[in-house]
């Protein structure tokens, strides 16, 4: 089945991407083999490369990759400076050791740096970095706002709050940049704690004003309309939700604790059921309907299934080839690529084939357009006037003209 072009109606359910990415992340957490982890990063990266859109949130992938590298770097620096509990014989360098008082026993600063210790840190850090990159892939491929739209009605308000917060972050970044530029205009230094304080207050003030304006706009557009619900139902909702949550807490405690093995699971199940019923009843207060919810179709099953399969196969591989999945750092050995686990990771490439092809700028969806409105070919990929240095999807800049330099007529 060849993948169609992504439109609103063929778009993949955001949840499918998250299941896929979490499956890959689970697989990553089950191995320290750098070759397998590298393969996993390759799989996630390839799918992102062929299936991400030009939307602002899709640019967050690079930020996650950088974050992963930073985590890896920090892990290595710590292992280098603070030493590592891994015994090793291949000494790389010997740092001067800092004498520490008695009460800091067990902490070491400086000393012998062994190849084994560093290798172990590398494997470990790589695992963390891979986890982060998998989450980044989900972020880049699935619109977070759409994911929140799939929440049950009673949680809708919380979802809106999160969406609004997400759109505010880029505005704040743009505000800070604008106000720092304004400080320059007054001939003042734009660095230092004092500068930050003086920029910080107006930025907060601006954010507050914007949220008030947004609240007014939302109110005027019907946000918060509620249906009449009989008082009995309202009370029942509260009882179910609260009681259910209590049940979940007690049940979890029973499951994890040693003593209450008998009552833990049933209590947890009953609690969950009650909480779900409470949420469902609570949804009746809301009059909202949903515009074009994404269907969970065959492709969504395939994408999410491939992620689950990768996770399951990797867990299974821990049974038949534990040695290859966790190459020992002591003694130093070159890791080998185990064939079957490697092949099972490649299942994660399924979305690169079955997921709908995003409409790239310049091709497909937005090609024909009136002369006045801007050309998508150039406006879409280049929108972030401020995002070159910031990781967040700051493309939606605070004022219209900030993204304007790129919206031009296609005449030249």
């Amino acid at each position, binding site marked *: 089945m060849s993948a169609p072009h992504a439109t609103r109606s063929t778009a993949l359910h955001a949840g499918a991407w998250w299941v896929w990415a979490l499956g890959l992340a689970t697989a990553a957490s089950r191995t320290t083999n750098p070759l397998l982890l590298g393969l996993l990063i390759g799989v996630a990266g390839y799918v992102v490369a062929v299936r991400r859109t030009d*939307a602002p949130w899709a640019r967050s992938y690079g930020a996650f990759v950088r974050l992963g590298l930073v985590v890896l770097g920090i892990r290595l620096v710590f292992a280098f400076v603070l030493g590592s509990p891994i015994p090793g014989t291949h000494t790389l360098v010997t740092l001067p050791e800092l004498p520490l008082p008695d009460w800091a026993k067990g902490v070491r600063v400086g000393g012998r740096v062994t190849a084994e210790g560093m290798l172990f840190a590398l494997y470990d850090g790589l695992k963390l970095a891979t986890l982060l990159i998998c989450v980044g892939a989900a972020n880049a491929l699935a619109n977070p706002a759409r994911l929140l739209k799939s929440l049950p009605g009673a949680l809708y308000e919380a979802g809106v709050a999160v969406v609004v917060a997400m759109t505010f972050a880029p505005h704040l970044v743009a505000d800070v940049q604008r106000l720092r530029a304004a400080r320059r205009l007054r001939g003042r230094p734009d660095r230092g704690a004092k500068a930050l304080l003086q920029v910080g207050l107006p930025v907060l003030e601006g954010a507050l004003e914007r949220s008030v304006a947004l*609240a007014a706009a939302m109110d*005027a557009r019907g946000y918060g309309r509620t249906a009449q619900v009989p008082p009995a139902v309202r009370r029942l909702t509260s009882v179910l939700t609260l009681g259910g949550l209590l049940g979940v807490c007690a049940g979890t405690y029973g499951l994890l604790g040693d003593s209450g093995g008998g009552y833990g699971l049933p209590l947890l199940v009953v609690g969950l059921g009650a909480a779900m019923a409470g949420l469902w009843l609570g949804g009746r207060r809301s009059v909202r309907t949903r515009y074009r919810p994404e269907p969970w179709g065959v492709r969504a099953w395939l994408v999410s299934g491939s992620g689950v399969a990768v996770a399951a196969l990797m867990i299974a591989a821990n049974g038949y080839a534990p040695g290859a999945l966790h190459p020992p750092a002591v003694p130093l050995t070159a890791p080998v690529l185990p064939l079957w686990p490697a092949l099972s990771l490649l299942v994660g490439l399924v979305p690169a084939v079955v997921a709908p092809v995003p409409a790239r700028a310049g091709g497909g969806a937005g090609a024909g357009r009136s002369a006045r*409105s801007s050309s998508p070919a150039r406006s879409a990929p280049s929108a972030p006037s401020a995002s070159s240095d910031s990781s967040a999807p700051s493309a939606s800049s605070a*004022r219209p003209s900030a993204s304007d330099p790129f919206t*031009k007529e296609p005449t030249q």
Partner: protein
Amino acid sequence: MIRFEQVSVTYADAAEPAVQGVDLTVPEGELCLLVGPSGVGKSTLLNAVCGLVPHFTGGTLHGRVTVDGRDTRTHPPRELADVVGTVGQDPLAHFVTDTVEDELAYGMESLGLAPDVMRRRVEETLDLLGLADLRDRAIGTLSGGQMQRVAIGSVLTAHPKVLVLDEPTSALDPAAAEEVLAVLQRLVHDLGTTVLMAEHRLERVVQYADQVILLPGPGAAPVMGEPAGMMAASPVRPPVVELGRLAGWSPLPLSVRDARRKAAPLRERLSAVAVPSPGPAAVPAADAEPVATVAGLGVHRDRTPVLHGVGLTVRPGETVALMGRNGAGKSTLLRALVGMHQPSAGSVRVGGAVPHRTRPRDLLRRVGLVPQEPRDLLSADTVDGECAAADRDAGAPAGTCREVVARLLPGVRGAAHPRDLSEGQRLALALAVVLTARPPLLLLDEPTRGLDYAAKARLVEVVRGLAAEGQACVLATHDVELAAELAHRVVILADGEVVADGPTEDVVVSSPAFAPQVAKVLAPLPWLTVGQVARSLEGASA
């Protein structure tokens, strides 16, 4: 459709009511324009219609406002959402979701409409507003005109009977404003929507209005009537009406078309007179040492060229207007002149220095920029505090800034908070702060945004005065009337390149988008402003 019965609104901490004695009815299917100087309560009146006043803003509303029979006292804004659609001044503050299509559907989702109804209305609205190509775009990537259309669309999908708009075209370039106004026309004519809007740029909208509500001054009761009649009494008037008053035409023309029909005798009289003096002030000497030179300037942002091969020379005493559509690179050029962008090609010299390598302290004395939002420049709690800070920043003797403020902004209290000033006053304060360091080159980015005619006239006077003293000034503006009043030279940017550079009358008269109204009426004669025509007529009769 909208009834105000003896309405007055008093905000919580105010001594005087913001509006009072409002008693009028807006009939169904009319495009009604709210006119008046800044601070007379236009926004208050608009927000009273959608229920935000007093439910959201607080304050006390006396009397009664009914919309389609619903009393706003008993209906909070969300209960009025299906009859009144409201779009505020800043469309960005209006958006809740992140793509165009979701934004159009948002209001309907809140109202709980059935999915098939929502789907149909979204498609209809996309077509009606010409947004079909943008449906999947992220909202942050739209241009100003597109955003305004999406904002209007997002309230239209709920099929409101009344549309309330606050300054829908103020921030837009002339072409984008036409786009939005065409949509409003269509709504009124084809769908019978009642539109109530406030707008400072009367020259753009007054010709489309069926009714005008005039708020003559703070606390005065509004008057409603036919546009032509109201314009005769209004303290705020577009140039075409001014010209009509000057020439004694009756009824007053509201559009360029009306005026041209009546203008034949005037054109004859004027063509007998010598060509008017080009600018209000003497043209600066062409051989003076330039205060700023830009040659072959290229600026890139994220590898996308924003400016390309731009050349510009500014001499002392010269006022240059930068024009061009939203996003043509006007603001970028101004920012490059103060060193906020590093050139990727070519050179920028301001008073002999390279801006992006000059320390802010030193640059301050060479060039000053008043940004689009003058408030960014102000950080103190009081006007006096702001002045003292400006003196310190510029190393000027204490009281310098205060003197400039007294000149530009007579009668402002030193203890006032900059936020409590009107748009015009804030602009003047920011201008004073910048002028404290006496930079030979002054840059203004979109200075007339949100200014009424009176504030604009004051700005024109101030800048003319400065130019006469030898101050060089570059202003980036959409406001063709302002450019005609002020500029010796107009530079038009398109796509980051200079496409026209010459004396104002040569450049703007031939351009359909950038010609001021008087030039359109009198074309092919080179008169640009009502003031020029008046002087020429006086000269002829004397």
